């Protein structure tokens, strides 16, 4: 008997729901949605957006696959399964910006076909490598002349405001967004942005004015009056056009280069060492042929690129440093790499959260790949973050059945730098302990010392 599981994050719109059956992803379309569903598909919009990959594919399937869960549904659709789900609070600035532009492009293309979007949630966008893809094919409905942009507030909270936070203040959106799953309210942001932001027409209206109007209109009377207006189509188009131009031009506030941005060139590694590491990773990937490889501590994606060149289909990278992530994301776009760098604080990964603590999946539940690479990582967790070495290894090895992990000994200049201003409490941090912990978790296929300081790579396979 196959198990049908309702997707815990799909409940807000009663016009349809996502279900998982084994590895298949299915969507019910309820009778309340069917008129819009047919109108939108007849408009040619869905076909247009699917043809260049901006919208996820869909196939109508026999409703029997969902058993009793299909009761009442008019249609059941199947979507291709995405190899990895990520959330806006894990995206680097550039990825959130690309997602925002995709949303606007889709809304603009939709309007031309007499279609509009019901909402503007960032969770409706996922990534195929660095390319954003819209995944909610039930978000479309017939446009009614004169209607407001229903998703405007949500678009501001989930895309615009988080981007503005970084663009104006240099503060990244990730921690705030993670704590506030619906994004950053205009009222909060309005209090934080510098005064000069009022010189920007778009920031003035979308942030400051919206916040003020929202504050001034807490009475039911104002709400009922507000609902009686009309936004001419030309006004709607103008808003989208102006918003798109504005967002495309946003840049993270420039400050000093972040710690890791120049790491690939400016580090304590000799070139020969990097060459050995590349060779080791290349051989591992050629043997493992992973569909999904995790590069934990990916920095700007050097070894992710090596993995992709050697047969990995998709690399999802994780790093703590926003400068490195932005750089890595741009590199993936420019070089056409199927690489998605995401923000991760390994000492505090994304939790299970949202409604019933199930709406958005935690990191551990999603971090199941075919291979994992953790280079120049262990010392940052075991020493800089005081995480027990055995636990760090167990965490990493649990992410995939095989992988490569690097041990960085205490005498290495990088570790010495971490210990410079603090007491060395790490008695078990040595190569012998490392090997014994790793061997309890997996079989070591190969190991190679790659630097004069004694850095060693281990290729492991879980038993």
């Amino acid at each position, binding site marked *: 008997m196959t198990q049908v599981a309702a997707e815990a994050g799909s409940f807000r719109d009663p016009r349809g729901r996502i279900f998982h059956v084994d590895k298949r992803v299915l969507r019910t379309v309820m009778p309340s949605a069917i008129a819009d569903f047919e109108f939108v598909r007849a408009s040619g919009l869905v076909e247009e957006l699917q043809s260049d990959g901006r919208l996820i594919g869909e196939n109508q399937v026999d409703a029997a696959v969902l058993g009793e869960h299909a009761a009442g549904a008019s249609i059941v659709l199947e979507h291709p399964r995405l190899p990895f789900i990520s959330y806006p609070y894990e995206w680097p600035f550039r990825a959130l910006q690309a997602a925002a532009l995709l949303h606007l492009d889709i809304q603009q293309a939709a309007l031309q076909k007499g279609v509009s979007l019901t909402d503007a949630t960032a969770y409706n966008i996922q990534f195929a490598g660095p390319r954003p893809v819209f995944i909610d094919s039930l978000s479309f409905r017939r446009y009614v002349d004169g209607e407001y942009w229903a998703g405007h507030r949500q678009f501001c909270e989930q895309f615009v405001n988080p981007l503005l936070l970084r663009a104006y203040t240099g503060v990244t959106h990730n921690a705030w967004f993670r704590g506030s799953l619906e994004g950053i309210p205009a009222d909060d942001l309005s209090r934080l942005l510098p005064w000069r932001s009022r010189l920007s027409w778009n920031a003035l209206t979308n942030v400051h004015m919206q916040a003020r109007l929202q504050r001034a209109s807490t009475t039911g009377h104002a709400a009922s009056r507000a609902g009686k207006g009309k936004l001419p189509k030309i*006004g709607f188009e103008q808003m989208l056009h102006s918003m798109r131009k504005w967002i495309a031009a946003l840049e993270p506030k420039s400050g000093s280069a972040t710690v890791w941005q120049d790491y690939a060139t400016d580090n304590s590694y000799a070139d020969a060492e990097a060459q050995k590491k590349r060779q080791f990773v290349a051989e591992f990937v050629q043997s493992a042929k992973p569909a999904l490889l995790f590069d934990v501590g990916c920095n700007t994606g050097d070894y992710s690129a090596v993995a992709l060149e050697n047969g990995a289909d998709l690399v999802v990278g994780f790093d703590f440093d926003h400068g490195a992530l932005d750089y890595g994301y741009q590199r993936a776009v420019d070089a056409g790499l199927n690489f998605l760098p995401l923000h991760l604080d390994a000492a505090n990964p994304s939790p299970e959260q949202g409604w019933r603590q199930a709406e958005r999946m935690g990191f551990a539940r999603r971090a199941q790949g075919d291979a994992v690479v953790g280079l120049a990582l262990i010392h940052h967790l075991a020493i800089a973050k005081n995480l027990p070495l055995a636990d760090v290894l167990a965490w990493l090895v649990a992410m995939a059945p095989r992988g490569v992990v690097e041990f960085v000994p205490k005498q290495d200049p990088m570790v010495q730098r971490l210990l410079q201003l603090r007491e060395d409490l790490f008695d078990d941090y040595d190569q012998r302990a490392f090997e014994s912990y790793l061997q309890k978790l997996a079989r070591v296929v190969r190991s190679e010392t790659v630097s004069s300081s004694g850095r060693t790579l281990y290729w492991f396979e879980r038993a």
Partner: protein
Amino acid sequence: MLRRRAIRISLSLLGCTAFAAPAHAYLDPGTGSIILQSILAGIAVAMGVLRLYWYKLKALFTGKSAPAESRDGPDADAQNKS
């Protein structure tokens, strides 16, 4: 003719706050956003009127007729944002 178009546009500006067009969504669009959108719609219409007068004035001197309506409104933002 200019006056008649101006009156028509002004009437449609008034119309912006007169006719009901409910937001067809399960999402609460937010009062602040809706009022803001009415204001922006009003500004867009007002700019249309001004633009019309401007072209008419220019036409008086150059003898050329007004071009088709441009969609570029107040979005000179890239310059303002650093």
